[in-house]
Structure formats: C-alpha cells, structure tokens
C-alpha cells in the first residue's frame, strides 16, 4: 500500500468524502464543519490503509479499534464508515434528525462506531481500557484514538496520558487533529498548548508529527507508530480547520456552523464536480 495509484485514489476519495460531509451538514442544518473537514485524510489513511477491519463483520474480535474522541467530528466518521460499507450511504442524509441512528455526536450501536463520545476528553481513557483488555486477551491488534487539539485542554487527557505510559501500552496509538483552532479562537490564544510535542514526550509517549493532509506523510507516521514498542505512540497531525474549502479554511466561525445551499454549491465547485 501507499503506492502512487493508491495515493491518487485516496485524493479522489478525500474530495468525495468532503462533499458527503458538507451535504450531510447542509441537510442537517447544523453541525461541526471545520473539525470534520480537517479529519478527512486522517480517517482515509486509517480506514483505507492502516486499520485491520471488516465492514461485513464489525464485531470481529481481532479488528483494530478506533475511538473518535473528538466526537463532534462525526460527520467525517459517518461518511467514511458509509463509504466502507458499514451502513448504507443514503442514511447519511438522516444526520441529526429525529429517529436517525446518526446522532449529533457518535453513539455506540451504529455499525463501526466503537464508543459514544462527544463530551471531550474521555476517548483516550476508553481506548486505554480497550488496550488493557486486548493485552489480557493476548489480542494482536491496535487501539487508535483521535483527539482534537482543543480537546487536550481537558485534564482527563493528561490523566490518561500518564496511565498509557505507565502500562507501556504499545497497542495504543493516539492521533491529534492539530488544526490550531477551537471554538473561542486560535488554540494559542484560548489556552496555549506549546511546547506540545514536548508535553507528550514528557508524559512518556513516543511522538511524531506529520502533515495531516498529505497521505504520504500520514502513512509514514502510521507505519512508524505501528512499530513502536513499550511505549504508547502519538501522532500530532498538523491540519487545517475547514480544509478543502477556501472560505472555510482557518476560520473558527466554521467550528459549529453548517453551510447553507449556496455555500454548499460554492464548496462543491472548489472540490471538483466529479
């Protein structure tokens, strides 16, 4: 995997997933646009390259687990799960509507969703429980946990960071969607995280950074994390909030706002009408 043809296909998929996300959000009339768009390449690298999983057998015990701790990014997760075949793609249009399985934040029970998340900071601890269970059962799999950068303001993340290092959880891989914006504004202004990589290193993790929109960079980071032994591994993926749509990029106004019809049309033009 990771050859030129795959990368081209992944890029095409990224455009498609972005269009799915924007369409879902426009139909829902609300939701988290910016932080869904920043996740797209990360999720494609996982679901189409690195994860051991089987959409036809979502409860397969040896599958890799993925927890989307930044639950508000779920439009991206739903879009990729539907693309993989976990549930029919036409269900995406039910997002956030009464009677839909696709709740505003992910809910355990949707095929492919490992845990309910949305109250920030809890996913890494859930992943630790899964990773410790996997070790007890001698299971050869990985547990991935995707967090937001703003999410790591939560104290529980750092409790979990210590626990994962204490137990030398090399079957646990963290990924931070580091898009540098949170609701109130730039992460740096809301509560500065720097020195960020050094924090994770100090907490006992092996850490790498990558371009979270470049498939080669992501694949290299995921392959590296897979091989880390005796330490939990963290990938800080540098991303752009609202990535792919010029008028949404790097603008925290798009954190929790859905596009209206004409904004959707403008976005589609930028993403290619294929």
């Amino acid at each position, binding site marked *: 995997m990771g050859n030129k043809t795959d990368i081209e296909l992944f890029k095409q998929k990224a455009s498609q997933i972005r269009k799915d996300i924007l369409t879902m959000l426009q139909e829902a009339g609300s939701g988290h646009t910016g932080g869904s768009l920043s996740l797209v390449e990360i999720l494609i690298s996982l679901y189409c390259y690195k994860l051991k999983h089987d959409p036809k057998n979502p409860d397969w015990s040896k599958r890799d687990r993925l927890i989307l701790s930044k639950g508000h990014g779920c439009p991206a997760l739903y879009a990729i799960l539907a693309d993989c075949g976990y549930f029919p793609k036409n269900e995406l249009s039910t997002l956030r509507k009464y009677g839909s399985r696709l709740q505003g934040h992910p809910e355990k029970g949707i095929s492919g969703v490992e*845990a309910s998340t949305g109250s920030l900071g809890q996913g890494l601890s859930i992943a630790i429980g899964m990773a410790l269970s996997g070790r007890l059962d001698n299971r050869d799999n990985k547990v991935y946990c995707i967090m937001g950068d703003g999410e790591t303001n939560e104290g529980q993340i750092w409790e*979990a960071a210590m626990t994962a290092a204490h137990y030398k959880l090399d079957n646990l891989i963290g990924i931070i969607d580091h898009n540098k914006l949170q609701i109130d504004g730039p992460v740096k202004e809301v509560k500065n995280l720097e020195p960020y990589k050094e924090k994770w290193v100090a907490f006992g993790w092996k850490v790498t950074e990558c371009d979270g929109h470049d498939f080669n960079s992501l694949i290299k980071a995921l392959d590296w994390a897979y091989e880390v032994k005796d330490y939990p591994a963290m990938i800080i993926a540098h991303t752009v909030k609202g990535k792919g749509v010029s008028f949404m990029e790097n603008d925290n106004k798009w954190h929790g706002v859905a596009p209206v019809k004409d904004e959707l049309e403008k976005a589609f033009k930028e993403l290619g009408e294929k």
Partner: protein
Amino acid sequence: MKSTRGGFGDALLEIGKLDEKVVVLSADLTESVRAGAFKASFPDRFFSFGVSEQDMISAAAGFALEGKIPFACTFGVFASGRPWDQIRISVAYMNLNVNIVGTHAGITVGPDGATHQALEEITLMRVLPNMTVIVPCDYYEAYKATKAAVNYPGPVYLRLTRNNVPFITNEDDEYKIGEAAVLKEGDDLTIIACGQMTSICLEAADILKQESISVRVINLHTVKPLDRNKILEAALETKAILTVEEHQVFGGMGSSIAEFVCENNPVPMKLMGIRDRFGRSGESDVLLEAFGLTSEHVVKEAKMLLEKKS
C-alpha cells in the same frame, strides 16, 4: 459487626475466582476499599490508576466494551461527583456493565470531615438513565449485592460504608437486586431505610412497639430501580411513610420514594436524612446524634408523622 466494604472485598475475591472476566480498577485506595485481597490473588486483573478517577471510570467503560466486567473502586465522594460526566457519557449512555463502588459513604466516615463524607451519590447516580443504585445494609447484603452485580445488566453503583455495622440479614437470606425486603410487618406506619440506617430503624420499631405502635420496616437496598409494589402496598396499607437515609434528603432515597408515592397514592411522609448541609468532623456516633440519625430521633419523627395521619 462487620463493614459493608468488607462484604464487598470478600465477594470480590470470590467472583475473581469464579469469573475471569472480572477486573478491578483502583484509584490509590486499594486497601481502604477492600480490594487488596483481589489484587494479591489476581495481579494481572488488577489495574492501578493512581488518583485519576475520571480516567479510571472511562477506562472501565473501555474494559466493559471488550466484554470484561470491571469494578471501579474508590471513596464515594471520588466515585460519584468527581467523575460524574464520565459516568454519564462513558458508562450510563452506553449502558455498559460497569460496576462503580463508592466506599466511605455518609457522615459515619467521621473525623475526615465534610470533604470525605459522601452525602450526594444517590442523587447523582439515580438521575442517570440505565443506572442501578444499591445501598446494602450489612456485611452479608454487601457480599450478595456484589455477586449479583457481576451479571446484572447495565451499570451499577454500590454505596458502601467504612464502619462496622450490626448483622441484620442472614447469610442464607435470598437477595435480589430491585426486590426490597420487609424486615418487620406493621400497620400503623412504614419506615423505609437503606444502608446502616436500616438497623437503627429496626431499633426504633422495637421502641415504638413497646408503645403499641405497629411499624413496618422495609430495607430498600436497591434505591433504583424502586420496588414499586412494596412501596405502594406500604402506602395503601399503613397510610404513612417515614424514610431514613444517611444522605442528603434532597434527591436521595426518600425523595425517590416521595416522587413515586405522590404520583400513585399520596400519604403523609417525612424524609429523614441530612438536610441541605455539609458534614463535620467527629466520631461516628457523635455525628449520628448531631445530625438526628439515631433510633430516638426516628421514634420522635415517627410519632409526629402518626399525628398527621388522617
């Protein structure tokens, strides 16, 4: 006399032997919560989280998602309030078989004072959908409740106390989560209690009997789900209900009974417990007297309630 936390600890060791899926998570209070024997016997299934209760609770959810049966243990104050949102989202929302064990409940914790006297857990836990809340009255009941929690669906909160309390149930009494026990039959009034208040209420019933007042005593070991039948019978047959708990009355066991009674068959009620104040340092017996939770106080309140009966 033995403590309810002791009953839990002994049962934990037993279920550790019976079921390999049982894992124990602890937040630096392993001996205090009586999980030390389990730790010594099953070190691979014991997980220390340090003083990180939020992390511990969400991790317990992770274990449960993988089919393990976690018991997450610490003092009641740190098992309920501190990680409440983690219990709400990681545990209750997903309806996982996570057992949360909060020891050192109530003012009888004593000299440690208000910070360590958990008086709000029943309120905090029973408001969560899917949650079961159990407050055992003695060692045997704590032992049986722990064993019953293992395969009971959904999350369970077990409220336990530090101090030794009299045995009021027998080793071979049947125990079922959700089925309250009528410890004494009576017609004039019903006293419903949970935890160590149960033995105090039995004493009060004996005193009242000497004055020809016939009291029914119900041990409501499961505060949620309520045993609606036994409470409705009590309301219909004795027409007055006194509730006694070592817990805030606002939102606690008495409140849950009052909610049900007032919707179904209103009768005069009195709710005894801690009334909108924090605990204080002191020895257990001194505190029970200071907070009005002795058999003498129960007798007094029972008589006042009887006067309100039409």
